[in-house]
C-alpha cells in the first residue's frame, strides 16, 4: 500500500523497498536503527510534498537524510518509517555572484559547492571534516561547523533563505531578512525534527587573497593549550586553530607523511587567511606567542603543496586511528577555551583507568574537543568501558562550563544527556517550538529530546 502509493507518485526508480536496499538506510555513521518501510529519493520539492503526504496518510514517520556521515545517529530511522534521501537533489540551482549567494539543493555535497563557485572567486565557508561526502542539507540539519568556523562561523551564519516542507506537506519559504520570527535561524540545527529542507540560499564568501599555514610543536600539551589562549588573547582570531596530541601524531604521520613531528606532545596547526599586507605582522605575532609558550618547532608552509600536506593530515586524522585500534568512538564536547588543559586532563582521567587509549585532534581555537577513544567492537567489555568513559567526558565538559555537543548534534545518541545542561522548563520550551512544526512527532522521531519528555510533560 505505502510502497505502491509512493511508486505511483514518484516513479519506481525513486522508491526503494527491497530488504537489501532498505538495510543500507537503517544505518548512519553512528549506529543502526530500525529497517525503514521504504526509502524515497525525491527529485523535486513536488516529490517531497507528495511523499510526505503519503507517509502521513499511512502513519509512517519521516526521516530526512543527507550522506549519513553524522556521528550521533541523527539520520537513523529510530522507529522505521520512510527515509528521504536527497541524493538526486544535488545541484547548484543558481549562482548570484553579485550578491555573493547561491541557491542549492539539499543533497549537494558540501565541497562540490565551493568547487562550483570557485571560478567566481567565491567559496562556501562551513567545512566539516566530512565535506567531501556530507551534504548541505545534512549540514543545515546539524548546523555543521568545521575547522574554519573559528572565524567564519557555523552553518547558521551562512544560510539566508530556506524552502521547507512541513509534516503536513505544506511548502514555506523563510528568509533571514524578512520581517517576522527568524524561522531560518531555528530550523538550522533542528536535525530534521521541524521540517524538511528542499532548497536553500546560502551565503558565499570571497576567496581570501592570502592564506598562510603554520605548524607549532610542543613537548607539553598544557603549553600548547596556553598558546591557543595566547593567540586569541593577543587579539588575533586565525581562520583555523587545530590541535593534535601525542597519541594521534604518529599514526597520522605514518598515513599521510604530512611532516608532523612524531615525538611532540602536541602540535598546533594554525591558518590565517586575509590580506597580504597584514600577513607578516600576524605571522610574527603568532610566532612570538608560540615561542613564549615554549614551542619546540615552528614551521611555515612555503607553498600550496605544503599547506595542503599539513591540512591533509588533520582532515584525514580519523581514518589514521585504524593503526591504533580497529574502532574508535569520537566525542564532541565544548569548553571555554581557557579550560582546555582541564578538559584534556578529564579525557585522560576518564580513559586511563579503563585502559582506553584516547587521542585528541580538535578545534582548539573554539574549545571544541574531539577525543577519540580507541577500542575493539568485538570486545564487549571494551565497548562498555568506552561508553562509560564517553559519558564521563560529557560530564566533565559540563562541569567546566561547557556543552555536550559543538557541531555533531544531539541526534539519537545524546538525547538522554540533554538534561545535563537543560532543565525540564528549558526542554519544554523547545518542545513548544516543535509542537508548532511537528505536533505528532512524525519528523525524525526519537531525536534530540530525551526519551522521557513526552507531550504530557510538555503541555503544562
Amino acid at each position: 500500500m505505502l510502497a505502491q502509493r509512493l511508486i505511483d507518485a514518484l516513479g519506481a526508480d525513486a522508491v526503494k523497498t527491497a530488504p537489501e536496499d532498505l538495510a543500507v538506510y537503517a544505518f548512519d555513521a553512528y549506529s543502526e536503527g530500525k529497517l525503514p518501510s521504504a526509502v524515497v529519493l525525491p527529485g523535486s520539492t513536488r516529490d517531497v510534498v507528495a511523499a510526505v503526504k503519503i507517509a502521513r496518510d499511512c502513519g509512517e514517520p519521516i526521516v530526512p537524510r543527507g550522506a549519513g556521515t553524522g556521528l550521533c545517529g541523527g539520520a537513523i530511522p529510530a522507529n522505521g518509517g520512510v527515509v528521504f534521501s536527497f541524493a538526486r537533489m544535488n545541484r547548484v540551482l543558481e549562482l548570484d555572484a553579485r550578491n555573493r549567494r547561491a541557491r542549492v539543493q539539499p543533497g549537494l555535497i558540501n565541497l562540490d559547492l565551493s568547487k562550483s563557485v570557485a571560478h567566481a572567486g567565491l567559496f562556501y565557508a562551513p567545512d566539516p571534516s566530512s565535506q567531501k561526502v556530507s551534504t548541505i542539507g545534512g549540514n543545515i540539519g546539524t548546523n555543521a561547523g568545521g575547522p574554519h568556523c573559528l572565524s567564519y562561523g557555523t552553518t547558521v551564519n551562512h544560510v539566508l533563505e530556506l524552502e521547507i516542507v512541513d509534516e503536513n506537506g505544506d511548502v514555506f519559504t523563510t528568509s533571514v531578512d524578512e520581517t517576522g520570527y527568524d524561522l531560518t535561524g531555528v530550523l538550522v540545527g533542528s536535525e530534521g525534527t521541524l521540517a524538511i529542507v528542499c532548497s536553500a540560499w546560502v551565503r558565499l564568501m570571497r576567496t581570501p587573497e592570502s592564506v598562510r599555514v603554520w605548524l607549532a610543536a610542543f613537548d607539553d600539551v598544557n603549553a600548547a593549550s596556553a598558546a591557543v589562549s595566547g593567540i586569541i588573547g593577543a587579539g588575533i582570531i586565525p581562520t583555523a586553530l587545530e590541535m593534535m596530541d601525542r597519541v594521534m601524531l604518529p599514526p597520522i604521520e605514518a598515513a599521510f607523511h604530512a611532516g608532523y613531528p612524531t615525538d611532540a606532545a602536541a602540535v598546533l596547526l594554525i591558518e590565517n587567511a586575509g590580506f597580504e599586507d597584514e600577513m607578516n605582522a600576524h605571522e610574527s605575532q603568532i610566532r612570538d606567542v608560540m615561542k613564549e609558550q615554549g614551542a619546540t618547532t615552528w614551521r611555515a608552509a612555503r607553498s600550496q603543496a605544503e599547506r595542503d600536506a599539513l591540512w591533509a593530515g588533520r582532515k584525514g586524522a580519523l581514518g589514521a586511528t585504524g593503526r591504533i585500534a580497529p574502532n574508535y568512538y569520537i566525542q564532541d564536547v565544548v569548553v571555554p577555551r581557557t579550560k582546555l588543559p582541564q578538559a584534556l586532563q578529564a579525557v585522560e582521567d576518564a580513559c586511563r583507568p579503563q585502559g582506553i587509549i584516547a587521542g585528541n585532534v580538535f578545534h582548539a581555537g573554539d574549545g571544541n574537543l574531539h577525543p577519540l577513544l580507541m577500542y575493539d567492537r568485538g570486545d564487549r567489555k571494551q565497548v562498555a568501558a568506552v561508553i562509560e568513559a564517553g559519558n564521563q567526558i560529557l560530564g566533565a565538559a559540563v562541569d567546566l562550563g561547557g556543552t555536550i555537543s559543538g557541531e555533531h548534534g544531539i541526534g539519537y545518541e545524546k538525547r538522554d544527556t540533554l538534561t545535563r545542561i537543560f532543565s525540564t522548563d528549558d526542554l519544554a520550551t523547545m518542545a513548544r517550538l516543535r509542537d508548532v512544526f511537528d505536533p505528532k512527532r512524525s519528523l525524525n522521531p526519537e531525536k534530540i529530546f530525551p526519551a522521557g519528555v513526552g507531550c504530557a510533560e510538555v503541555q503544562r
Partner: protein
Amino acid sequence: MIAEAAQERLAPKTVAQLCEILARCDRERRNVRVEGGKTLSGFGPVLAQADFIVSTTNLHAIITHEYHDLTCSVQSGVRVAQLAAALAKHGQFVPIDVPLSKKATVGGSLASGWPGPRRHLYGRARDFVIGSQVVLADGTLAHAGGMVVKNVSGYDMSKLYIGSFGTLGVFAQLNFKTLPIPRRRRALIAPLPEATRSRAIMQIAALPVIPAAAFCAEGFGKTVDGTDDIDGRVLLYFEGSEELLDRATLEARSALGRAGVPETAIVDTGASESFDRSLNACIANKRGRSITYRSLGLPGTAQERAVLLRDVCNRHELFTDVLFDVMNGDVFVRASERSAERFAAKIALCHAELRALEPRAVIVASDAPIRATFEAWGATPPAIEKMRALKARFDPHGTLNPGRFIGGI
C-alpha cells in the same frame, strides 16, 4: 500620551521579579508592554493601551566578561554603548549596530532584530548570541545555549526571540561571543552626484578590502560628514590595522576616481562618529511631519529600490532623504514636509503608492498620530501562519506586547 500615563510602569530589579510580574499578569489575563531604551518606539504600529508597562532598564548588570575566552554575559537592560565601553577595556567588542546606542538596551536591540550595517563583514548581532535567558509569558525562565562559542545542543532557541519584538518572551540575560577591537578606524567621505552613483556603487561593492560599512546618503541633513549633503555623499567606513587601512584608502580613492568621483576626504578622528550619525539617521524623525521607511533586500538592488521609493515621495511633492547600505542592501527613505498640516495632506496617497511598489517596506520611525493611520509592517511573510501558531503556543493569552509585531501578532 494621556493614555500612557494611566498605565502602571514596573521596572523589576531582579530576573526573579520579572518572572513573578509576568506570571501574575498572565494568570490574571492582564497584558504587558515591554520596554527597553524606547529608542525604537516609533518603529511599527501604534499600540493600544496595555495594562502594565514592564521596563528592563533596571536589569543593567554586566555579569561577566571572560575576556580570555572572548565571551561575556549581560542583563538585557544594559545599554549598548555601556556594553561597548566595558568590553573595550579589554580590547574587545560585539558588533551590535543600532541607532542611539547610548540609550538603546542590549535586550531591546536584539529583540528588534535591527540589521546592522557591519553584518556583511562580522556577521549579524544575532550570530554573536551564544546563550540567553528569556522569561516567557507565563513567567517561566527558559535558558538557551550557554557560554561556549560553538554549541549545537538542542534547538537554538535564542534565534526565535531575536527579532521577535518581545512577543514570545522577554530577554533577561544575553551571552555573547566577542571579537578583538580593530586597531584603527577610518572614514572616507566623498560627494556622490547622481550621475556617478551607479558606477561608484559597482566599484565599492568590488573593493578588495571590504569596508566595514558603506552608505550612500542623499539629504538627511548633516548626517554623514556634518555638512549639508543634499547632493549625495558616500561614506566608506573601514576598520582594521594600519597597513590594511592604508591600502583600503588607496584602492577606494582610485575606485571612486574611476567612477568619476573627484575628491575623497579622509576622516580618522571622528570616523566612528560619522558611522554612528549614519546609524542614527535611519530613525531620525521630524516631529509630526515625517515617516521613515525601511526596505531590506539584496545589495544589488539597493540603489534601484532607493530611487523607486524616493521618486514616489518626490511625485507627491514631499521632501525626501535617502540612506542606503551598499554592502547589505538596506534602504531607508524619509518623507517629510515643512508643516504637520502639509504632511498630513500628502502622505496618505504617497504611502499607498509606495506600498504598492514595495509591499515589504516597513515604517521604522514616525510619530504615533501619523503611524496610527497606516499599517506599519507591510506585507506579511509567507510563513505567517507558522508565526501566528508560535505566538499562540508561547503566549496563549496574548500577554506579551499584543499587536506589536507583523500580522497583528
